[in-house]
């Protein structure tokens, strides 16, 4: 339609286009000042298509210098609306800018078909000298910078601003080499004046501020990832001083907090995180970082409080897409999206937080709270699909059977033995089908004990073996807990049955056929299995003692002592059993050996080893020898008498 009228009427066209552009921009000014969010969002879409169509029409004619300033301005506005309407991160190359630059070159009689966008910018800025094109080109350059920042192409961005500054005022950019180059270039860039004839939908000053913030934020994150914490800190602080929305500011403070935490400054970290929450309480990742810092500081009360608050906050507002005001079409959050930010700002699911609460309570010995939280968590698991339970690598959750065992452990400590037994039953029944009962498992299980080069060959098979080993561990631990729970309920026979089942399961694996091995070479699972066996033997032995079946008890204690000769509980029980069987000589000998090995050394040894799973801690406590002092006294008496005997 436009072509028919030909180039002769171009001034007429130009006037019409300018009027249309002005009308569109005016409508936007009116719309964004009033009206609810939804209407504004629709307006953004309308404007995008409006400017897009106008641009298409203008491009229908060959490029000409008089129309170019208007065309570039329309392009600028159209791209801004594209950005604003997408409402998510910008990706890919800005094709429109590339085309716009080609049009500029076309109007100037040059050609740049095969050039990359970077080269095109260089050519355009160096060769196009027309005064009236400078301002629109600079604006377009700022938009290009936004695109490149979003793609984390900092080098291209810096190069572009170097060109923009040189073209304008050579020399100013070079003054601050010590500072971050990109930032100083950005700051030194002089914003072209905005003409009334070419209205912009978002002012170029705003855009410059946003670019500065985004550049500082991005580089800060990069330095944080690279481990240059001081640089990262200063860049992020720079970003925090910049122009951005509250939510982004909270994100920046959160990152500052993480940075400080990694630098070993927990108090500073806490301050930053608190500021993040002050700015935007919806920045819940900050709250989980607060909990982590308190955990590091050992302030359990504060940590639990933070976690509880986090849980409450998560429950109140489900993670919905943050509604953003369309007042600013281009926003910092559209420009900064890197994987490290995503991992720093990982949102915890309510289930994770609930578990963390329970786990911390149990670790800290707050049994009643722990029980409550564990039961809450188990209830969460029963809820529908809304309640997601993340099981991936970044999750705070361990494997589900372990959670059940921990819950059982908490219940047991709280004296709710029947409940503990029920929870363990669930683990036992679930694992039943997954544990191979074959005796030939013996070799399979011994293989991982001695690390062989073939271990990596069949990854699937190995992981399956490992999985069955895990299941075996959980099942055995379930029986162990049940045994101790029955013991606490005073049902020795039932307890002995459970302990025997546990031992029977463990025998299935045939782990100890090769005798005692240095602990360092064992798989963690195998180590745990050994511990479970020891605890189970002790438990059964104690029950035998209660029933007065001293010989069977002695057998169990001896086995236990063989598994772990240095273990004080095992030795003490052995000594006690020997003592009760009136084998006082042997008892004294064992006791002497135990007391000779420095108790401090023992503790050190335990510290060296891997920490045992949380669900075993209660059993470890239960298995400690209760009457060590009375036993020590009686043995010392005995030793004194026997030593005196030969003397006298």
């Amino acid at each position: 339609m436009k072509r028919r009228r030909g180039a002769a009427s171009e001034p007429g066209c130009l006037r019409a286009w300018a009027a249309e552009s002005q009308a569109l921009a005016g409508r936007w000014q009116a719309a964004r000042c009033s009206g609810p969010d939804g209407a504004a969002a629709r307006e953004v879409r309308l404007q995008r298509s409006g400017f897009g169509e106008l641009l298409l029409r203008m491009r229908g004619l060959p490029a000409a210098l008089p129309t170019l300033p208007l065309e570039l301005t329309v392009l600028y506005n159209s791209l801004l609306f594209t950005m604003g309407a997408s409402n998510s991160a910008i990706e890919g190359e800005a094709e429109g800018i590339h085309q716009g630059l080609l049009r500029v070159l076309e109007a100037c009689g040059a050609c740049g078909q095969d050039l990359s966008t970077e080269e095109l910018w260089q050519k355009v800025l160096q060769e196009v000298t027309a005064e009236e094109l400078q301002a629109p080109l600079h604006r377009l350059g700022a938009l290009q910078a936004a695109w490149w920042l979003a793609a984390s192409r900092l080098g291209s961005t810096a190069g572009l601003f170097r060109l923009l500054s040189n073209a304008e005022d050579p020399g100013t950019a070079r003054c601050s080499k010590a500072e971050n180059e990109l930032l100083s270039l950005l700051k030194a860039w002089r914003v072209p004046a905005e003409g009334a004839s070419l209205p912009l939908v978002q002012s170029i000053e705003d855009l410059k501020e946003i670019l500065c913030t985004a550049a500082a934020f991005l580089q800060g994150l990069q330095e944080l990832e690279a481990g240059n914490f001081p640089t990262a800190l200063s860049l992020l602080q720079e970003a925090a001083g910049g122009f951005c929305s509250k939510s982004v500011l909270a994100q920046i403070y959160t990152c500052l907090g993480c940075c400080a935490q990694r630098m070993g400054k927990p108090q500073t970290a806490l301050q930053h995180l608190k500021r993040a929450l002050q700015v935007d309480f919806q920045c819940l990742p900050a709250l989980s970082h607060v909990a982590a810092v308190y955990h590091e500081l050992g302030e359990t009360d504060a940590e639990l409080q933070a976690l509880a608050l986090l849980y409450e906050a998560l429950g109140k507002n489900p993670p919905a897409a943050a509604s953003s005001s369309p007042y600013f079409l281009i926003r910092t959050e559209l420009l900064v999206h890197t994987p490290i930010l995503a991992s720093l700002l990982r949102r915890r699911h309510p289930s994770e937080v609930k578990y963390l609460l329970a786990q911390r309570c149990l670790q800290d010995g707050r049994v009643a709270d722990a029980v409550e939280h564990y039961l809450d968590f188990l209830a969460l698991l029963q809820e529908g699909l809304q309640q997601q339970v993340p099981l991936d690598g970044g999750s705070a959750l361990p494997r589900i059977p372990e959670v059940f065992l921990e819950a059982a452990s908490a219940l047991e400590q709280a004296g709710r033995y029947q409940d503990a037994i029920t929870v363990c039953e669930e683990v036992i029944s679930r694992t039943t089908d997954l544990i191979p009962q074959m005796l030939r498992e013996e070799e399979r299980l011994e293989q991982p004990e001695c690390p062989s080069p073939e271990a990596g060959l069949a990854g699937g098979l190995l992981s399956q073996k490992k999985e069955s080993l895990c299941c075996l561990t959980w099942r055995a631990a379930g029986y162990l807990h049940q045994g101790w729970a029955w013991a606490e309920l005073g049902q020795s026979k039932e307890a002995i049955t459970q302990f025997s089942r546990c031992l029977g399961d463990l025998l299935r694996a045939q782990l100890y056929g090769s005798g005692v091995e240095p602990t360092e070479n064992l798989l963690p699972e195998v180590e745990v299995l050994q511990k479970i066996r020891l605890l189970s033997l002790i438990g059964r032995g104690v029950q035998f003692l209660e029933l007065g079946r001293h010989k069977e008890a002695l057998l169990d204690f001896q086995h236990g002592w063989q598994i772990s000769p240095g273990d004080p509980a095992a030795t003490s029980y052995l000594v006690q059993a020997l003592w009760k069987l009136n084998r006082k000589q042997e008892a004294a000998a064992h006791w002497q050996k135990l007391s000779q090995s420095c108790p401090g050394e023992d503790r050190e040894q335990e510290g060296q080893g891997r920490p045992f799973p949380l669900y075993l801690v209660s059993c470890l406590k239960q298995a400690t020898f209760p009457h060590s002092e009375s036993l020590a006294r009686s043995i010392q008496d005995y030793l004194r008498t026997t030593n005196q005997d030969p003397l006298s």
Partner: protein
Amino acid sequence: MAHVGHRVDYLAGFCCPVGGLVAGKPRVLCHENEIYLSNGSEFVYVYDQEGKVLKAVYRCPDQVWHVELLPQPRQLYILCAHSGIYCVSLEQQSRLMEQTDGDGQESNCPSGVFPVDSDACIFPDSSLCMFTLLNNFVITLSQAHGKWWMKLHELPRPDEESPPYRQVSEVGFCPGPQPGDEGDGPPSRFLPVLCCASSPGAVGSGEGLWCSGGFVLEEPLFSLLFGIDAAMLESPMILCGFPDGQLCSVPLKALSSSPAVNGCHDVSNQDPPVKILHHLEEPIVFIGALRTERRAAEDAEDEQLFGDAGCDCVVAVGHYGKMVAVKADQREEATVPELREYYLRGPILCAACGSGSRMYYSTHSDISAVDLDWVGDSSDPEDAESCTGVLPPVLSPASLSICSVVALSLSSRASEGESELLALSAKGRLMTCDLCSPEDADVGLTPAEVGRRIKELLSGIGNTSERVSFLKKAVDQKNRALASLNQVMNVSAALLSSQEGQKPIACTVTANWSCLLLQDSVTISCLLENCSEYSLEEGWTLCVQLLASPCALEEESVDSATTFTFPINQLLPGNKRELTLPLGSAADTKLDLPLTISCALYYSLRDILGSGSDSSEALDDLLPDDSPILSPDREGICLPLSECTIDMLQCLCFESNPPRPDASPPAAAPPDPVETFLKASREQTEPEGAKAGELLDAPGEGNLPPSAASIRVSSELLKNALKTSSSDVPLSCATLRWLLAENAGAEALSSEEVASVRGTAPDGGEVQLLVREVAMNDLSPAGPIQAVEILMESPSLADMCRMHHAVIRRIQALVLEQAAQGSGPPDLRMQYLRQIQANHEMLLKEAQTLRDRPPLGEEGAATAEKLLHVYRQLRNPSLVLL
């Protein structure tokens, strides 16, 4: 295998495109009495099975890829190609219908077509490939950024309105190789398959689990397949079958990695909860589950009741017939999942599983049922012993004799208490197939029953006729293929058996001048002559490849070839067909003389199978230029016919009258016209001064002296070769006739005695050819040797060279022939010969050095000049061919 009794009922016909429906997108769903059907077009139909009427038709904005039904509230979810998922409320629609049409029940057409407009689009996402429903959740699978994305959305509950479709969680994963990068659409015509597997615990808690195609999987298979965590979470699992053959499982409860921050996903953790269960290596078309082991005997009766027991076997079926079944094997002490692959006859269009142990699958020719219940079936003890495991070692499909079904669904209508198969045929017919054999049929029939029976018979006939027409088509196609193969074999045998002598099918190539587009130009005509006793039928193609010689004028020229293909419709024995190719003008430098022309017959084997395309463009694609005709990547039969060379002498054009009246005198050669004589003698005596001689002979050709070359052959040799006696015609005339024997335009020469001709080259240049007899005095001590000198001249160097090449080629052949007969050379003066040879070697060396030295600036022009000069000398040797 047990016979599967069945009764087929036709319900309705739906429109289908030409060529029938294609499997994959069509879908049939059944709920209560209504059948929901999509046939791959943009329509979705609702059919009332009870009233046998079409209740409603919905028109979607684009092709429908998938349909799911949510029974409570009754809603249809429709996935449209490249636009997203639309939700249609059926209750609202039926109300609407009752209002608009009260008595339209009798007519078999719907009251109207309801358009599904864009307001109904609940998930506008062009990258969506598949979705499924699970109670009030929608699980979508889309493809973006080189990954598959599974998203879990919660549907709004009926009572609440505002937050429409909340995304609960999503996960991106990339099983195996990257999915195709062809934009956002699915990479192939196959869509992924989704299916939901629930754990047995979850059923009890959830009231009325709805998931079409979903199933409850029993323990311990659930734990074994999906792991203990999913089992303890009692998480429903989504099974995905991908077009590349991967079978993955995703726990819906642990779907999330973490919500996106600023649109960027945390990719740091590399282990999304997705587990690859198996790789079928062909597109997966169906995933289902079966109950293979019957429970205790007393339960056998209510086995048919749905939801009574979970399934204990998962099956996945690939398009090309590979099928995998997984079942927990508890026989041995360790419980392991037993995984067995079967090979069915593909391609499998669709499949369905009921509540029993049978799976039904449809191929183009039949629906078959396979039974995976093996334990109950193993009456033969040897079988049981020979193979351990819980799955049958082989499957024996039982035919249902229903062909070309593209969508299958198993419905169990509560009213009848028996299950039936709903099928949509490729011709768009909806039918039901009862899976219980009607054994109680021939007891006393009431008239109503008789009527029903007749109806059944009629529809049975209809089904049979459809099947017959399909089979007939297949047989016809095979017959045609056999007939084609037979004639191809005959032709091949005829050609191959006569390798030595004259081929029964020959292709003669000649060059002609003709007037094309008001312009004289050279054309090549190929005369295909069928002297065999078989006719060349349709499907044969004559391929003519023109190959420019490597010794073309440009030094760096590589072999360039053009292939022309002519489909032969039919060539009966004894018939000929002439085909003409333009040789192109001078501008077409690709085809430079001399040309080697190879002809071959080609038969595409794809045509036999009916899969080949008939268009000649496709054949041109098949036979690209610049490649030899015989190449291994062509699926066909190629029989070479002939190969020949077209050179300058064949392409010369003479005027209708003898070119030079003054050159025509039939007198003996030596007293030639003065000019010729002068020039010749000068060249002969002072070969270095050829320039002067040429200057004389450049009357109207501008400033360029015509290039010239000469060659001498002893008269003896020529006489022997041409077998002419001296009395007949002068030797020079005979020689010229011999040279131009293959030129169609040179017939005039045969009638007159001419020793010199002037003609036009294909590019329009003028060429002169002159033959005369000379005596060589210095060569032999025995006296002068009589020789024939052939002189070639042309203002165009290129034409002269082509001519020279052509003449030398002929003489070379002649000399070789004569050498074979072994005539001794006459006594020669060796000293003189050596002298000449030394001269030439020096010239050659000079040429070599000139060419090796890169020409610089002005020097370059001089060098070129010098080079030309040397070549000119080389072209005029003083030697004679004896």
